[in-house]
């Protein structure tokens, strides 16, 4: 028998003569058996605890609640929790969308305005750039012009 088989027997308190023979020789399994015995003793101590008795009038209190509308355990808290999460989520989405619109609008306006001003009164360049109506080399040239104050290299 190997240690695993013996230790499975120890766990269930079901030891064959062969397992006992192995145990007598194996210090590793002896340590497991020792702890299993301690654990079992601890469980017996717990089992000796008497469960609480129903307090006086318990049945009467149950009967008084028989016609209550059934609710799930912790349901009020769950409902409040769910509503709070949905409300917070909806609020966050709304704020994000509003922020997205205003930032996007402001950025678009700022870019158009700055491009128009940089090109010294020739907004057509900016409009062409924004519209993507230039090829890659032209776009680089235009960007260089803008960065270097209208002085292409």
């Amino acid at each position, binding site marked *: 028998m190997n240690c695993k088989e013996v230790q499975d027997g120890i766990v269930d308190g079901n030891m064959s003569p062969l397992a006992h023979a192995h145990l007598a020789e194996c210090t590793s399994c002896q340590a497991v058996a020792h*702890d299993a015995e301690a654990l079992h003793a601890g469980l017996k101590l717990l089992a000796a605890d008497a469960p609480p008795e129903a307090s006086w009038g318990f049945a009467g209190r149950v009967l008084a609640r028989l016609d209550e509308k059934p609710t799930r355990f912790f349901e009020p808290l769950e409902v409040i929790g769910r509503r709070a999460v949905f409300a917070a989520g909806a609020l966050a989405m709304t704020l994000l969308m509003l922020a997205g619109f205003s930032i996007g609008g402001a950025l678009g306006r700022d870019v158009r305005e700055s491009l128009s001003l940089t090109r010294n009164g020739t907004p057509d360049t900016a409009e062409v750039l924004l519209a993507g109506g230039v090829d890659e080399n032209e776009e680089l040239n235009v960007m260089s012009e803008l960065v270097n104050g209208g002085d292409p290299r």
Partner: protein
Amino acid sequence: MAEPVGRDAQELEWIRNAKQGSHEAFGALVERYQRRVFSLIYRVTGDREQVEDLSQEVFLKAYRALDSYNQTASFGTWLSRIAINHCYDYLRQTRGTRGRLESFEGESEGKLSPADSLAASGPDPERAALLRDIVSKLLRRAPEDDRVVMALKELDGMSVEEISEILEMKIGTVKVRLHRARKRMLEDFRRMQAGG
């Protein structure tokens, strides 16, 4: 815990009347089974403070589900199923709290060395209390399935057959669950003693 012989004519009449809305008949059933329900809930949850509230909930659930009781099992077994399911709900609800409260990390004063642990089960009440406390914590930390099957077998003293009837599982399945639960608990116990 052995199933009381409760399917007598009187009990069947209480059940029949309770199904028709008789509070008095249901009260008689509560009186008969309250000790059993208290015991089950205490064994499974280990939470003395909550036993009465949880028991009330169990009886209320049973009353509302009375129409579904078809006497294929005894009333006690049927009621025990409701109690166990309610315990599962409670254990799941309190899982996070238990995990935090019952952590062994950083706890050194409660440690027992392997050499001490057997002695703790002996006549020294202080060490016995320590061992009892450690095992109680191990049970609280255990997964719900382990805890239920261990509580029914090791604490409530039910047979594998009784557990299989209450949990509506095959006897072989109960045995496998018990083996795994014991093994995991022993591993936890050894790890804890080793300082992990």
